[in-house]
């Protein structure tokens, strides 16, 4: 074996975590042990069940005897119950797909819902949708579980006792009438309005009940961006960005690739400029941020700028670039304002070379460069960025044809204060909450919860109990999005339809139908199709009339439902006139001490998805922590504080305090404390209750310039720890026989664009001679293989979510993850290189590599895992006796063992109920205790494609099979297909210059090929 290339071409040393970097003795100890401490503990059989073995056997024999005598026919195989009248479109065993729209957030992605025998089992993106193009986020993927959430509300309640809808409707209608007649305010607090018909309905409601005011609120919103756009351009509708045309991108504390805005759309467009297959035409990403975000991990250059310094940074950048020439003329007042700012302040923290590169790149790429500020940054930063984009020609990359529409503005701080004021004065008669949770989401100092107690009628329309419904007199259960009708138009020219794919599972109604009943003024006016008809009517006037197609209205409606989306020409907002003087009123952020930065979590969102176990258990893209949030601080801040991971600290800002554990995050700015929102729900289902810490408690209505950024924050160690569960170090490999395993062994291999252009074969300098000790197996037909392009992977976790749903992967809970027993079949490994202050991050999706010479197969004593003739490493669950030898022998550590029957183990069999069982994919076995499992390359999809090919009498092609992770990957980084078909994309990628296998020298011949990441820096060496 020739090992020479290891020492020559990869100078980079990778470290998985700070403990690893500092060679913490505990990590060394961990590495000595194959499995995590405690992984095999807890097998006291008396603990598992209250019944002793003797008693169990006695019961067994007794029940067997009873069964034997009671059985009339022991050969009975049960019944097959066919449909009485089979719906024409349903054939048992064949899935149906329905186009709909996700209402999980204001992006309203088009979705395609897979149903089997009328039961939704998977949600994927709608490929015909022009924005999200067949992809959705992890929340969307996992949201199928919300439909089958055992803690969904089933019946309307008045003061927590179940009643029927008629009583509720009658009482509320009379309360509404009384409020109207006494000219009291009726407040409707609702989520962001992106549905034109819902907006019309709310207007109808206001017309019927005078005194109604609408308050759209959203915890994480784009209000700063919108308001800045209004100040600068005079419109609230701002354009989307043509990321696929940008050469230079500067992201200012913006996680546009991970959790902000429509990141699914952004990732797809961004990675089109990260395509190593043909001509290398990469974009260059600069990220100036105080925290470490997914975007920061992808960046070619990271500049450590804390969020309170962003305004000065932008102004300094404007100053530098204006000196080099500007596409527009700058007002003299503005000119004198910007001249005060210079880069000198940032040279130390961000690095002089990086700043020079940044300025030069912007200068030489005018019209092809863009600056993008994060949604948490203040309006002032956004105004400055708007000017900056005018100067460098970033405006050419604005896409006004797909602008973000503004159907109804979010309520400002002042408007919410007015509402609370009017409640406190006794002027509010009825408060209606439509799918929102303001008691949780509004900062405590608004005093919303205490104000609610003064309202005689508080109504919550919600899917499950939340903090607000706890304060409500009426709690009305609403339909899940898969049971609802709806329309959405969040972007110009796009009208997206939502249709129910299953009739309501419980005694629920959709929120629009409930409001319509109240508008009609009588409980008997409710019909199941009340909103359906209302929607169709509005569709006819709004869309059909505008579009004026050749078909009749009914046909057009049906075809629109079939496609899920209608595109049409809409007046696009133009923003030619800019108001430069708006910049004159902008100011710097307050500074001093630590700056607290509250950010969005890409899995639980604003807390709405807290009760979804799948989402809680997907490792965080950066920190790999599950089931928790934490205060992330920089390594040097941690030294200063003498606080390490898991140590409890008290963070205080603006007089608000919160105690939570610390996580030391490499690459953060030394003054930034980053905490994610959406955790610490107190009134919630069992899964999400008291998971993490409610960082909204740190928010204040008296914020400086942004509700998400608080300067002068303090952080003090208070003693005690809270153990954070991370999937990070669980897979440490034994180092006694190979020291520095992942550093030497080229698990991650990278290069630079410059280096690659000079020498495309830099990865494979010498042909290696590896001989095999086993005979080669001939693969005559198809041979399944996967290629993953590391240039495109953003570590978003959507593949994990999709795999979980497709393959019935159970939720194991935090305690089990702490023991290293997580069950996900695909994970995204994250490696750091460089220094703790300036780390370079590499991500790598890791799944079963389906090795030709699979080491797991040789050691299975019962031949439960073996190889198929089409190259799959197959796993027969029924044969497995659970020795775990295979996992022991797997160099990639991708095998998962069922230490429990996780369906009855997780939180007292939370997910073992008739309802949640419906989420399972009927084509995949539900594994039970004592069985090893792992990625199957979605063998059920391969078999399905094969059966279709046989039916159609054609050869099976590799492109017929799309794995769940591949289908879900927003950046199309995953390619799957037939390696024996030389025309297939996967075999081309296998032959690519950048292709490598992880642990190639083991000669296990993995069938997952990775494409080495190229960094688009100015040098030929990786920094």
């Amino acid at each position, binding site marked *: 074996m020739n090992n020479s290339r290891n020492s020559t071409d990869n100078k980079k040393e990778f470290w998985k975590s700070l403990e690893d970097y500092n060679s913490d003795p505990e990590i060394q100890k961990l590495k000595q042990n194959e499995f995590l401490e405690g992984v095999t503990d807890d097998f006291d059989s008396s603990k598992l069940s209250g019944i002793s073995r003797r008693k169990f056997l006695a019961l067994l024999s007794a029940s067997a005897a009873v069964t034997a005598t009671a059985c009339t026919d022991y050969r009975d195989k049960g*019944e097959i119950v*066919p449909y*009485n009248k089979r719906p024409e479109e349903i054939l*048992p*065993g064949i899935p149906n797909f329905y186009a709909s729209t996700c209402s999980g957030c204001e992006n309203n992605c088009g979705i395609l819902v897979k149903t089997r025998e009328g039961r939704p089992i998977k949600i994927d993106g709608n490929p015909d949708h022009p924005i999200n193009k067949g992809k959705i986020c992890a929340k969307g993927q996992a949201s199928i579980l919300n439909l089958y959430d055992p803690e969904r509300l089933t019946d309307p309640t008045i003061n927590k006792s179940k009643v029927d809808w008629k009583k509720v409707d009658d009482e509320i209608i009379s309360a509404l009438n009384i409020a109207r007649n006494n000219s009291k305010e009726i407040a409707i607090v609702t989520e962001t309005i992106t549905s034109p018909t819902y907006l019309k309905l709310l207007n109808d409601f206001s017309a019927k009940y005078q005194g109604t005011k609408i308050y759209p609120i959203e915890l994480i919103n784009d209000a700063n961006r919108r308001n800045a756009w209004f100040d600068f351009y005079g419109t609230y509708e701002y354009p989307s960005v043509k990321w696929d045309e940008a050469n230079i991108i500067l992201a200012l504390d913006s996680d546009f690739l991970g959790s902000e805005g429509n990141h699914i759309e952004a990732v797809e467009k961004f990675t089109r400029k990260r395509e190593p297959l043909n001509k290398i035409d990469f974009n260059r990403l600069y990220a100036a941020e105080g925290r470490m975000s997914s975007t920061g991990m992808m960046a070619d250059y990271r500049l450590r700028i804390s969020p309170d310094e962003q305004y000065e940074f932008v102004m300094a950048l404007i100053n530098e670039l204006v000196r080099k020439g500007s596409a527009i003329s700058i007002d003299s007042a503005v000119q004198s304002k910007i001249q005060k700012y210079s880069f000198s302040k940032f040279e130390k923290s961000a690095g002089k070379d990086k700043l020079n590169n940044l300025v030069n790149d912007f200068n030489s790429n005018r019209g092809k460069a863009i600056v993008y500020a994060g949604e948490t940054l203040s309006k002032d930063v956004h105004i400055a960025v708007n000017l900056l984009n005018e100067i460098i020609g970033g405006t050419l990359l604005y896409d006004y044809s797909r602008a973000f529409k503004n159907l109804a503005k979010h309520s400002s701080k002042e408007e919410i204060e007015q509402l609370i004021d009017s409640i406190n004065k006794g002027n509010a008669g009825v408060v209606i909450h439509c799918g929102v949770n303001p008691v949780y989401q509004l900062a405590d100092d608004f005093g919303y919860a205490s104000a609610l107690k003064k309202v005689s009628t508080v109504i919550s329309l919600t899917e499950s109990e939340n903090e607000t419904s706890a304060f409500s007199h009426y709690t009305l259960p609403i339909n899940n999005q898969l049971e609802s009708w709806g329309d959405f138009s969040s972007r110009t020219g796009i009208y997206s339809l939502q249709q129910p794919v299953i009739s309501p599972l419980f005694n629920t109604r959709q929120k629009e139908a409930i409001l319509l009943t109240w508008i009609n003024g009588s409980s008997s006016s409710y019909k199941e199709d009340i909103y359906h008809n209302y929607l169709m009517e509005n569709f006819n006037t709004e869309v059909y009339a505008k579009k004026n197609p050749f078909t009749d209205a009914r046909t057009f409606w049906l075809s629109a439902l079939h496609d899920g989306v209608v595109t049409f020409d809409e007046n696009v907002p133009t923003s030619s006139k800019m108001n430069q003087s708006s910049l004159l009123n902008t100011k710097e952020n307050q500074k001093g001490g630590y700056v607290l930065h509250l950010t969005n979590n890409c899995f639980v969102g604003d807390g709405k998805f807290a009760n979804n176990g799948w989402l809680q258990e997907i490792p965080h893209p950066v920190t790999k922590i599950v089931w928790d949030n934490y205060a992330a601080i920089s390594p040097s801040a941690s030294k200063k504080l003498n606080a390490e991971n898991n140590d409890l600290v008290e963070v205080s800002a603006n007089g608000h305090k919160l105690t939570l554990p610390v996580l030391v995050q490499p690459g953060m700015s030394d003054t930034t404390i980053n905490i994610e929102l959406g955790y610490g729900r107190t009134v919630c289902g069992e899964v999400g209750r008291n998971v993490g810490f409610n960082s909204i408690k740190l928010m204040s209505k008296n914020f400086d310039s942004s509700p998400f950024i608080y300067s002068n924050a303090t952080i003090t160690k208070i003693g005690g720890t809270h153990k954070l569960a991370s999937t990070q170090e669980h897979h440490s490999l034994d180092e006694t026989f190979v020291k520095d395993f992942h550093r030497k062994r080229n698990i991650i291999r990278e290069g630079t664009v410059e280096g690659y252009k000079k020498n495309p074969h830099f990865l494979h300098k010498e042909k290696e001679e590896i001989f095999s000790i086993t005979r080669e197996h001939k693969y005559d037909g198809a041979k399944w293989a996967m290629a993953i392009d590391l240039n495109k992977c953003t570590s978003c976790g959507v593949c994990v979510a999709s795999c979980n749903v497709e393959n019935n992967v159970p939720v194991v809970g935090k305690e089990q993850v702490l023991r290293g027993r997580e069950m996900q079949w695909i994970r995204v490994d994250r490696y750091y290189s460089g220094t703790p202050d300036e780390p370079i991050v590499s991500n790598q999706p890791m799944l079963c590599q389906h090795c030709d010479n699979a080491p797991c197969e040789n050691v299975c004593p019962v031949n439960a895992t073996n190889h198929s003739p089409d190259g799959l490493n197959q796993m027969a669950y*029924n044969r497995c006796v659970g020795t775990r030898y295979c996992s022991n022998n797997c160099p990639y550590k991708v095998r998962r063992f069922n230490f429990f029957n996780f369906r009855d183990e997780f939180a007292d069999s939370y997910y073992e109920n008739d309802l949640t069982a419906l989420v399972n994919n009927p084509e995949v076995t539900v594994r039970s205790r004592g069985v090893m499992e792992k990625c199957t390359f979605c063998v059920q999809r391969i*078999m399905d494609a094969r059966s279709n090919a046989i*039916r159609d009498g054609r050869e099976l092609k590799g492109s017929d099979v799309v794995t769940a992770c591949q289908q879900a990957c927003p950046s199309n980084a995953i390619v799957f297909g037939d390696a024996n078909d030389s025309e297939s994309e996967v075999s081309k990628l296998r032959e690519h210059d950048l292709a490598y296998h992880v642990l190639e020298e083991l000669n296990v011949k993995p069938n997952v090929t990775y494409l080495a990441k190229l960094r688009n820096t100015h040098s030929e060496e990786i920094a």
Partner: protein
Amino acid sequence: MKKTVLDHVLKIRLPLTLFVIAATYVLTYYISRPERDGIGYAPEQPIKFSHKLHAGTMAIDCQYCHVGVTKNRFATIPSANICMNCHSVARKDKPEIIRLTQYYEEGKPIPWKRIHKVPDYAYFNHSVHVNKGIDCASCHGDVKQMEVVNQVRQFTMKACLDCHRAPHENLPYLKQVNIGPENCSACHR
């Protein structure tokens, strides 16, 4: 020589016991075989439907009722509306048809007794077999002659593999037939 107790045990008691155990085992094995593999299982159905009449005498194609068989895993048991395609007119006076109509009109599904079953963890696919030209009768027997359907062949893994390994012997009517897959994930996933 005096016979000891031990002699009695060794020479008579022990062989006798062993013989009885062995005989019981062999007898039970052979007698219960059809019970164990399900051969001959012919439960009473909620409606006395005759395959002999429909598929045999009237020669209605299997797929007229079992619509899924060429399309996917399940052959599908016909829904009542398929029966009613004919029986809304045909033989409306017969008691069994009256019961069928009753089920249909009340919207109740007919609880047919299941005869053929492979375990849940085996994902048997009807369409790949039928689309390769394998006759239904090769597994289900000559249903056309059955007044009451019963199981005629084993539905065990061994039975599957026997045919997969030697399709020429088991399916002589097929001119071209490949060896069936024997790998685990062909059936288990």
